[in-house]
């Protein structure tokens, strides 16, 4: 296919991505470098204040009022502020203060612990902390659960496989807000899980009001949500493992586990890499469970942080600064993976 024809075919799709993904990305950087406010002027307001006997007196006061343009819309003034928004959003100053603050804890671990607690009290760093915990914790767990499921379903009877796949697709495909809500409703203080646990004599557990339980709950949700994806991909991969190699390994005296470790897993390696890559992207933007579980105090995330700054604080420049930091984060996270897949692509023609 000639380059001209190629460009013609991809033009509409590329144009839509440029206009609504690439340009907004540039726009976010722009927003992060500026501050804006509505231009105001002091307007003289005269009011008649009644005195007595029908007499009145003019009272003059000055109130700020938005300056309007010809269309009657308030004029916004934009000031270039450089890195100021970004420095504020990343809380560089506070971070420096925490790191240099003299600490009187006795031992080194205690010192690090108190420093860590100070850092994770900052808005951005607490969101960053839990996002990273979520990414790091869910990735191996979803791989393990997905792989075990793939092995198990592979051994299930043929008639059962269809229904097993159907049910496994539910957590992944049902609207994430709904699946988060469904899990959230199970763990409310007066809902089934807490009630059953209490009936069993395990005491009263307030899942949503404790940092540890709510974090475990969100990570468990993340694994429950992502494992089916790993399962489907790895299950499809299992069908392509050459039976002869497996049988040869068994004949040579390998145990079942050794056959899996030495034949199956190496064969599925490229698929593990794909699953990890896609899961990293999705886990990094964890949002729905944080919103639904209302866990901001105990567990926040970067995407949630931008969302709050944008829609509740209505501070577009602060939100843009957080957004830029978020994008830098995802680029750092993905670069090693992208480079290694690129190398693989080149080495295998």
């Amino acid at each position, binding site marked *: *296919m000639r380059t001209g*024809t*190629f460009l013609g*075919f*991809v033009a509409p*799709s*590329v144009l839509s*991505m440029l206009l*609504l*993904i*690439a*340009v*907004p*990305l540039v*726009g*976010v950087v722009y*927003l992060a470098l500026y501050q804006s406010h509505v231009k105001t002027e002091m307007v003289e307001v005269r009011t008649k204040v009644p005195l007595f006997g029908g007499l009145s007196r003019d009272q003059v006061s000055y109130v700020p009022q938005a300056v309007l343009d010809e269309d009657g819309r308030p004029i916004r003034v934009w000031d270039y502020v450089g890195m100021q928004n970004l420095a504020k959003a990343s809380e560089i100053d506070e971070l420096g203060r925490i790191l240099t603050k003299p600490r009187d804890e006795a031992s080194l671990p205690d010192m690090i612990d108190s420093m860590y607690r100070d850092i994770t009290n900052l808005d951005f760093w607490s969101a960053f902390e839990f996002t990273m915990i979520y990414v790091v914790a869910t990735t191996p767990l979803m791989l393990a659960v997905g792989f*075990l499921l793939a092995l198990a379903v592979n*051994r299930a009877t043929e008639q059962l496989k269809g229904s*097993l796949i159907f*049910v*496994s*697709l539910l957590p992944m*495909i*049902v*609207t*994430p*807000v*709904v*699946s988060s*809500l*469904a*899990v959230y*409703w*199970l763990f409310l203080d*007066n809902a*089934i899980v807490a*009630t059953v646990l209490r*009936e069993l004599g395990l005491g009263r557990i307030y899942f949503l009001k404790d940092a540890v339980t709510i974090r475990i709950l969100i990570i468990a949700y993340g694994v*429950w949500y992502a494992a089916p994806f790993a399962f489907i*991909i790895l299950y499809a*991969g299992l069908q*392509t493992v050459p*039976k002869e190699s497996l*049988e040869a390994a068994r004949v040579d005296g390998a145990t079942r586990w050794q056959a899996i470790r030495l034949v199956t897993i190496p064969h599925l390696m*490229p*698929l593990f890499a*794909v699953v990890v890559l896609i899961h990293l*992207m999705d886990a990094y*933007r964890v949002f*729905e469970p944080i919103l639904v579980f209302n866990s901001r105090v105990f567990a926040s995330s970067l995407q949630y942080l*931008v969302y709050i700054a*944008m829609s509740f604080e209505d501070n*577009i420049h602060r939100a*843009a600064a957080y*957004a830029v930091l*978020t*994008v830098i984060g*995802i680029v750092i996270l993905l670069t090693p993976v*992208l480079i290694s897949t690129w190398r693989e692509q080149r080495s295998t023609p």
Partner: protein
Amino acid sequence: MSASDRLPLWLKSLNTAGLGIWLFVAMFPFLWMFLISFRLPVDAFSVPPQLFAPFTLRNFYGVWVTDGFWRYAVNTGVVTVFSVVISLAIACPAAYALSRYRGSLGFWLLVAALIFRAMPHVVLLTAYRPAFFSLGIWSRYETLIIVLTAINQPFTIWMMRSFFMNIPKELDEAALIDGCSRFQAFRLAIMPVMWPGVVTAALFAFLLSYNDFLISSQLMNGEMQTMTAALGNYMGQAKHLDKLMLGIAGAVSVTIPVIILIYLFQKQIVAGMTAGAVKG
């Protein structure tokens, strides 16, 4: 598997038990949500929890009729149908070209699409907000449709490209030799055999639009909200059981179409997920 590879009994039981536990864990949140959506608040959150309780459609009546959920359902219908159609219309030729073009431009376009796919949506939203406000196109069908279409593109072209790769090149080359232009070859020779791939891509484009909460809830307000975004109205209502029950009924209503879709198109969904990954 050969006869020598039978699992010993203990491993077989472990396998069955594991699958049983997974089935329960995967289904239970949805099952319980369905079950309590047909109950009065007292029965839904009773101590101890009951398996059977009086049946009522009160919650569904409340959310669909009193709260006007049907309006949001209509919005969802309009937005998803148009965004799926436009998504596919522009992704099909792009994915076809990417599967046939050999230059490095194609590779870089795919890498760019992958990076775009990784962008958290809230980042884009931060830029949309001031831009759409000043353009005066806030809270309109067209705006949300176009935004969702663009956001669907990276995923859709990646998936469709791998479907097009499976269609032999000889097919369009023959058409070219017969005097077709590239576009005619694409339309007359390739598209007719591409329908299974198109159905799969349409399913995923639908799910991406239908499941979206973040963008829809921010770009549309009031009566223009989509069904998924409207669930936000019922969040954080743990203290008001009546309102909470309406939310549960709403969530069940959002889930039903998805479950029907998985039931009908399970094969296509699995094919779509594995297309990019397994075939490379």
